[in-house]
């Protein structure tokens, strides 16, 4: 219990410091002005979401290979936290886009592939509610999770492969791209904070699933008596 409380305090402390840095340490961007500060929250949450889906993918593969329920719990925890992250990305993106582009949304490659990613993981979570038998549910959702992950590299590559409405990448974007050094430090601090925060949520969700598994065993035992 103490470990969980310490993890929560560290995660919340980090995101509080990162938010402070986004507003008071990072300089104001010349063309967009203050609205650009959404970038630190929006992009770092997107990175945390994609890392979370990668862990989900690995957990799904491990479940298919080893059939241990722990991998199923991890896959589920990551899918839920990743879906929450992408929900935040899909909400903060249009709020940033409206004053800058003049439109809330456009069906360009990056936005559409991110929306498809969100739909895929919502389907992953819905699929789990439709299957009652635990082993069958774990296996089918693991297979679907592996398939859903195909969209993650497409989201990553969308702004590199196609010229879209969404800005070109400023990190790992090749020659001509880049960020002001202070902005870069603040951004990577936000990335670290969001990853720790996502890790905290995954740990909490994993613990819940582990407890649920224990309760289901107890219920089966009680029914058998």
């Amino acid at each position, binding site marked *: 219990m103490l470990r969980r409380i310490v993890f929560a305090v560290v995660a919340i402390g980090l995101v509080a410091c990162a938010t402070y840095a986004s507003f008071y340490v990072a300089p104001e961007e010349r063309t967009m*002005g*203050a609205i650009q500060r959404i970038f630190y929250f929006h992009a770092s949450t997107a990175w945390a979401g994609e890392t979370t889906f990668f862990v989900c993918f690995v957990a799904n593969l491990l479940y298919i290979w080893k059939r241990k329920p722990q991998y199923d719990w991890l896959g589920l925890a990551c899918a839920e936290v990743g879906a929450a992250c992408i929900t935040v990305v899909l*909400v903060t993106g249009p709020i940033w886009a409206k004053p800058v582009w003049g439109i809330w949304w456009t069906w360009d490659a990056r936005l559409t592939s991110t929306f498809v990613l969100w739909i895929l993981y919502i389907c992953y979570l819905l699929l789990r509610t439709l299957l009652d038998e635990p082993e069958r549910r774990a296996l089918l959702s693991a297979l679907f999770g592996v398939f859903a992950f195909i969209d993650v590299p497409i989201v990553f590559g969308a702004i590199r492969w196609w010229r879209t409405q969404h800005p070109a990448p400023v990190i790992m974007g090749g020659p001509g791209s880049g960020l002001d050094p202070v902005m870069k430090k603040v951004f990577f601090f936000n990335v670290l904070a969001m990853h720790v925060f996502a890790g905290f*949520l995954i740990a*909490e969700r994993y613990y819940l699933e582990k407890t*649920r598994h224990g*309760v289901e065993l*107890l219920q089966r035992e*009680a029914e058998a008596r």
Partner: protein
Amino acid sequence: MKNLNSIFAAYMIGWGVFFLFFLSVVKRSADLRDEVERLKRSAFKEK
């Protein structure tokens, strides 16, 4: 600061989504704890 409302909305809605998600985890944990208590009580009655 220009567009302050938009920045405020983005951060509030974003953190609101995470808060609601965490709240749902807490609620589901509390429901499971109740279920464990119910199972314990029924096992105790059987004894």
